[in-house]
């Protein structure tokens, strides 16, 4: 991607200047020549301001000075000014991108300009196969710019040559590593590893919360199921025993009934009758007990609060009887009286005399008492609710007392009939006939056994029901746990995927770091050896695993510390060019005063070799007249497509710069 042109309007000393840059691949160097202070660095600033909204190479002498051209402020009659920088890029496929950044200003009363914010201060237009797209504004436009020239690595494309000789003096191995990381975007992989680890930890926390109890539930269900089978078998056996006892009982009763003794037959008839009555009584008792339970279950909350409810109802009734509720006056009535300036009696209370004042005060007091009465209104409403609750339990406790009374009567009747039965059984047992006595005694045993078995069966049935409930509840819980387990398995899979992702990201980072470092080392070394004028003095440039840079002397000793300023600049330029070539970004290189500190012969050597190592790159050199000597011009002539000179016109406040092409 090349810069086609930069157009500056009212940017520092550039009032209205357009510079077109050389783009023909064989001649893509542009040289812009100017004396110190002419505006070379500000051209670089105009470009970074347009790209990123900030000047990145401000000289200390320009700090604090207005970015807006001062001559425009002085000479214009208007109170509104606009600063604008437009850059047109041409991509490898020939498609263009136009960036426009503007800043509006308004003249203050004291004459100074004040920035005015504008919603569309940054815009981008881009050419596609068929048409121009845009304008795209703000953050969306900035995103596109960042994808073309990441803001964080701008310094490796646009740099100040004068500072180059100090680069390896001031730059630590940590910063060199950082530069390699930035240029190759390894910091992105570092961030991926860091953030993957953070996500993994969060997933791990979630997984811990999902530790499954499914196994525990499964075991419980199995245990209950096995016990249930045993219980059912036991119930079956109990039912068999009961029917056996009943069969024996019936058989013995049959024998007794068929005996030839009239007394026994009479007693058996009595016995049958009593048993029938007892069955009915037992059934009535069961039904009444159930009714009582249902009643208590339904009304328990009100029954428990019954005394309190009755007491509250009494209190409210008491207030009503005392005339405290309902309110004597309605708020609206009193408010209307006060509004009209009337007393309840109809007399006027608007005057300032003693009578009016005292009456008005009394009416106002009524309003205050009415506020209390408002609460009384609420009490009346509450009382209705309480009344309904009390009525809902009806004749409680009368109803319960009635049930208990009926239950007691049934119990007494049951006991009486049981006693009669016992007496009949005793009478049969005391019979003079041995077989009658034995049958009677055996039947009594059978009945007792049957009663015991009925109790056992009821207990067993209850146990079976409880077990079935347990199985049902545990099955529901097991399903919930299984769903958790499923989630847990899925999270474990996510965790292992994160770990694998981190391992692979680390592998990519290490591979690229090694590759990039080796490539930078190789290119820096080649370029340094080609550009350095002291041939056969150094063996190259080395970057070790800790990113310490060394320039070994042929004798074997380390030479970085003893390099001259010019040599250090060559070393830094070689490093920058190497960083640039491995970056993968097709961004032009702009070097401000690249040869200022280097003497003639070494400069020529750099000028001769630099184009070779910046092939395919558009290069813009901002040079002083001294730097761009006839010798340098000659060395670069094969690659320079356009040359300009910045002419400076001094004005009352600041300078005006014109950029003029040199043929």
């Amino acid at each position, binding site marked *: 991607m090349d810069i086609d042109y930069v157009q500056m309007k009212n940017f520092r000393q550039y009032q209205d200047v357009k510079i077109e840059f050389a783009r023909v691949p064989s001649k893509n160097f542009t040289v812009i020549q100017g004396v110190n202070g002419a505006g070379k660095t500000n051209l670089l600033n105009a470009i970074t301001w347009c790209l990123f909204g900030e000047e990145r190479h401000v000289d200390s002498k320009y700090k604090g000075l207005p970015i807006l051209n001062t001559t425009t402020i002085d000479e214009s009659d208007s109170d509104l000014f606009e600063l604008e920088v437009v850059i047109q890029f041409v991509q490898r496929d020939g498609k263009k991108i136009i960036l426009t950044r503007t800043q509006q200003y308004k003249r203050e009363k004291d004459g100074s300009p004040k920035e005015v914010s504008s919603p569309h201060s940054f815009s981008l237009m881009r050419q596609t196969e068929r048409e121009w797209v845009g304008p795209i504004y703000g953050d969306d436009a900035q995103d596109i710019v960042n994808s073309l020239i990441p803001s964080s690595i701008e310094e490796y494309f646009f740099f100040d040559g004068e500072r180059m000789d100090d680069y390896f003096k001031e730059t630590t191995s940590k910063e060199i590593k950082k530069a390699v990381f930035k240029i190759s975007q390894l910091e992105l992989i570092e961030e991926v590893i860091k953030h993957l680890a953070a996500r993994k930890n969060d997933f791990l926390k979630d997984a811990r919360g999902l530790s499954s109890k499914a196994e525990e539930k499964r075991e419980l269900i199995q245990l209950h199921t096995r016990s249930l089978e045993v219980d059912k078998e036991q119930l079956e056996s109990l039912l068999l025993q009961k029917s056996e006892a009943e069969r024996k009982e019936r058989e013995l009763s049959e024998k007794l009934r068929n005996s030839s003794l009239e007394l026994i037959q009479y007693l058996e008839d009595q016995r049958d009758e009593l048993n029938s009555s007892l069955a009915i009584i037992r059934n009535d008792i069961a039904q009444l007990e159930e009714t009582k339970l249902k009643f208590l279950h339904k009304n328990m909350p009100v029954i428990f609060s019954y005394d309190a409810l009755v007491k509250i109802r009494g209190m409210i009734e008491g207030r009503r009887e005392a005339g405290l509720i309902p309110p004597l006056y309605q708020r609206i009535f009193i408010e209307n009286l006060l509004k009209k300036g009337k007393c309840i009696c109809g007399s006027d209370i608007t005057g300032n005399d003693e009578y009016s004042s005292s009456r008005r005060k009394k009416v106002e007091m009524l309003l205050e008492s009415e506020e209390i009465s408002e609460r009384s209104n609420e009490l009346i409403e509450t009382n209705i609710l309480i009344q309904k609750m009390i009525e809902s339990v009806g004749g409680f406790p009368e109803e319960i007392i009635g049930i208990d009374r009926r239950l007691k009567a049934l119990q007494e009747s049951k006991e009486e009939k049981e006693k009669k039965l016992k007496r009949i059984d005793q009478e049969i047992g005391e019979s003079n006939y041995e077989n009658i006595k034995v049958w009677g005694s055996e039947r009594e045993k059978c009945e007792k056994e049957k009663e015991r078995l009925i109790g056992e069966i009821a207990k067993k049935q209850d146990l079976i029901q409880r077990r079935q409930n347990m199985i049902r509840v545990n099955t529901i819980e097991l399903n919930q746990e299984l769903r958790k387990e499923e989630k847990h398995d899925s999270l474990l899979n996510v965790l292992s995927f994160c770990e*694998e992702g981190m391992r692979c990201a680390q592998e990519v980072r290490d591979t690229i770091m090694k590759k990039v470092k080796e490539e930078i080392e190789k290119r820096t070394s080649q370029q340094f050896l080609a550009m350095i004028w002291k041939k056969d003095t150094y063996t190259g440039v080395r970057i070790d695993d800790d990113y310490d840079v060394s320039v070994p002397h042929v004798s074997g000793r380390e030479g970085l510390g003893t390099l001259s300023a010019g040599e250090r600049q060559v070393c830094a330029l070689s490093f920058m060019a190497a960083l640039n070539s491995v970056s993968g970004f097709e961004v032009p290189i702009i070097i401000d005063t690249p040869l200022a500190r280097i003497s003639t012969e070494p400069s020529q050597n750099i000028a001769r070799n630099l184009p070779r190592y910046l092939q395919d790159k558009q290069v813009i050199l901002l040079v002083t007249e001294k730097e761009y000597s006839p010798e340098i011009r000659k060395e670069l002539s094969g690659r320079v497509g356009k040359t300009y000179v910045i002419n400076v016109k001094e004005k009352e406040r600041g300078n005006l710069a014109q950029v003029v092409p040199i043929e």
Partner: protein
Amino acid sequence: MSSVNRKILDTIEESNFPRDIKDLLKALLTIEFRNLTGKYPFYAKDYDRNIVELAESYRKRGGE
């Protein structure tokens, strides 16, 4: 628009990593690239979406 260094993307693509891991790394690098602009500070949801979706696909492929 992503402009993650070609070298990184090529290294990932040329590696022997499982397909889903390659896709994950490329997707996460794009998110990080966007984060670098400072405009998208909340990356976690984007991360989780990519991780969960690709982890499922990774499981189905049996980690290949």
